[in-house]
């Protein structure tokens, strides 16, 4: 018999220790998203002129870079998954060659750490919508603050506010909601049968 669609529970923490499958699959996610990050960086650059009228508005494109920071913890449910996945993704992006250069690795590290806070706030016991959205928002916040420091120190407070709001909105929508939807689709495909996220008897 085929497995029916498996209902997951939000409150099914794994053990805090990383099993090999957790490490390898998180790294696989990191590599896959690293290639996506790189493509998105190209697109971001190419799309720049479309936002030339009001540069902060390009922040609507931000969310894609933070998907790994949400998806990896939702799947493997271990402390550190967001950092590990974002770090690998950023490294792959940097090795492929990005105009953001090696700074992407610093971004990956800090965005990952910020996303961790969203799950740490619930002591890594719950991995549902709320945690995903919170992690995405925090990662977006960290990214925006880094941008202010590295790229836009001269912007006015008004522009910064709009930029921050758009980055966070984008990350919540794309990384938070999109990341949760992606995790569900992966679960429905049966690919996550080795993870606590998929442990409801059918």
């Amino acid at each position: 018999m085929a497995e029916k669609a498996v209902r997951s529970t939000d409150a099914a923490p794994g053990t805090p220790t990383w099993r090999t499958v957790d490490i390898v699959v998180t790294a696989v996610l990191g590599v896959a998203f690293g290639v996506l990050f790189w493509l998105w960086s190209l697109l971001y650059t190419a799309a720049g002129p479309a936002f030339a009228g009001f540069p902060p508005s390009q922040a609507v494109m931000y969310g894609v870079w933070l998907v790994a920071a949400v998806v990896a913890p939702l799947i493997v449910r271990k402390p550190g998954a967001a950092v590990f996945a974002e770090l690998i993704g950023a490294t792959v992006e940097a090795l492929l060659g990005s105009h953001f250069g090696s700074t992407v690795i610093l971004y990956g590290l800090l965005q990952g750490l910020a996303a961790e806070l969203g799950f740490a706030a619930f002591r890594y016991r719950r991995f549902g919508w709320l945690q995903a959205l919170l992690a995405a928002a925090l990662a977006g916040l960290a990214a925006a603050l880094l941008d202010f420091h590295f790229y836009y120190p001269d912007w006015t407070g008004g522009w910064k506010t709009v930029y921050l709001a758009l980055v966070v909105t984008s990350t919540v929508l794309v990384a938070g909601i999109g990341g949760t939807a992606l995790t569900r689709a992966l679960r429905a495909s049966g690919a996550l049968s080795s993870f606590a996220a998929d442990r409801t008897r059918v």
Partner: protein
Amino acid sequence: MTPVAVRLAGWGFRHATRRAWAVRDVDLTVAPGERVLLTGASGAGKSTLLRALAGLLDPEAGDPTGELTVDGAVPDRRRQRVGMVFQDPDSQLVMTRAGDDVAFGLENTGTPPALIWPAVDAALDAVGFDLGRDRATAALSGGQKQRLVLAGALASRPGLLLLDEPTAQLDPDGAAQVRTAVLRAVDARDATLVVVDHDVESWLPLVDRVVELLPGGGTVEHGRDWRPAPPRLPVRQQHSPGEQLLAAEAAGYTHRGSDSPGLLPTDVVLRAGRTLAVTGPNGTGKSTLALLLAGLRAPTTGRVTAGAALTAGLRRPERPPHRWRAGELVQRIGTVFQQPEHQFLTGRVRDELALGAGDTARAGELMERLGLAALAEANPFTLSGGQQRRLSVATALATDPRVLVLDEPTFGQDRETWAELVALLAEQQDGDRALCLVTHDAGVVTALADDVLALGSTVPA
């Protein structure tokens, strides 16, 4: 190394995600140095049992019952005494060089570096791998990779060697290489051997006895002289060759950036009512030929042309198949890929078939005929190997194409699903349709082929 004993009493296991037991009521004793072939239908729990012996079942993954000991202790405590080889070599190699990969397991268990290289060389020698430690693993053939994986398992001199369908993904030549290597490795009887495989005939000369795992639970013992019942082959209906549907004229293919051709110029004619089997060793471009005939790749030399019966209704009938629109192509040439899951586009079996069939009535009829009706709502990716294969054939049939191209359709099937599939394909051999089978499975060729193409020469079967 000293061989170890294995004992199971009333053993069973239930996965955390399933209500049904994966295996149950298994009583089995394997003496030190004995060689056992474990067989049984897909889903009988052979792989689960083997993982349990290796101490690889995650305690989070389900509930065991009964008793299972390796060398008198629970498998968790005997991990270092056990070596295991799985099906797919590409999912087992970790390092980039052959020697490093064999050393991987020794490093993991804290072997002092000075002892590692002699052990690596001994293991490479035991499996007859003579390409050297520095050979890049990516550059090896399937059979060579799998022998390397076997060397990795043997390097720590296990007392129990577990093989989970180690030849299922190899061509006949690679499979023979691996079996020879296994025989060499256990020849001295200093390791107990448990092999799981569907290919009973090939392993029988190497084992002492056969244990069949029953799907409902329990086991049946067979002796060395036991032979599985031959599969019932469909009665082949001969059709006289009909009109020409598709032809390759000196069609060859060279991969971009490669110096040597992947497929030498080849002539093929597919006629209505005939089934052509394309055979030959790996590396001769069989799969590439299938892609050319299927209109998925353009030949780099020569050409592929479609007959009038196939081009009728096309917007631009003068174009070769690889330039047809996908929608036009799928109505005329159906293709079944080696890995079924590559072809799935939706989240439900029903949607998968409706996508090609256009109307739900035909989709329903196909599901009924192929025994997929009970799975209509299931996600295609979660089906078993045999079910996935039937679904991929069904999706190709959904548009009722005149030509059907299948690449290794029996790959990874057990005896039962093999027989089902051959019967299904035999049903498609009517007077209107042409089939092209790319395969190394001699059984399929015997059962279905009218003509055989072995590297450029077409001879009647």
